[in-house]
């Protein structure tokens, strides 16, 4: 019984841990894909505010295993980020 209790405590503390170098401490990503669903924001190369959330500080695209974006939306994201780069918006 004691072991089980300890195990539960450990999992809770692990949630707040950083699990990647690229992840910023103040931004915690949800486990569900934030870009799919009914009220999800539209991915567009003109929407710079949204695109900047999914870039690291040096301007590289964050992997979907960190941000938990679905595969279909990750492809859209990458395409629109590259378009914005071409126009020198990001």
């Amino acid at each position, binding site marked *: 019984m004691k072991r089980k209790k300890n195990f539960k405590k450990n999992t809770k503390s692990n949630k707040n841990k950083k699990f990647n170098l690229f992840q910023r401490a103040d931004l915690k990503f949800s486990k569900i894909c934030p870009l799919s669903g009914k009220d999800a924001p539209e991915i*567009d190369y003109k929407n710079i505010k949204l695109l900047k959330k999914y870039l690291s500080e040096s301007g590289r695209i964050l992997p979907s295993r960190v941000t938990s974006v679905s595969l279909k939306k990750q492809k859209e994201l990458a395409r629109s980020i590259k*378009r914005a*780069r*071409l126009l*020198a*918006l*990001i």
Partner: protein
Amino acid sequence: MNNYEHTIIVKQDKFENQSKQIITKYENLININSGKVLKTEDWGLRSLSRIIKNNKRGLYFHIKFEGTGETIEELEKAENIDEMLIRFLTIKVKEHDLKKEYFDKKEY
């Protein structure tokens, strides 16, 4: 007929006064070559994220239009020669969203 979005970056220093002439020139080019301009947006003077062809800033213009593949051929043929432009980009869209504007006209 397909829907397209087209953005142009114009050089700042020499051609700031001529910028309106440049857009009307390309709008006419679209209208002549079996196209139809629906909306033009002026994003104003923006600083580029990195230096392109020795330019730090550029004037952005955004055109939404209907047309065929031939209109784009003619447009880009004219733009490739043009010295006033830094860059251009055309993108095919399923539907036009004419209400939403992501950029206000502010000078940075």
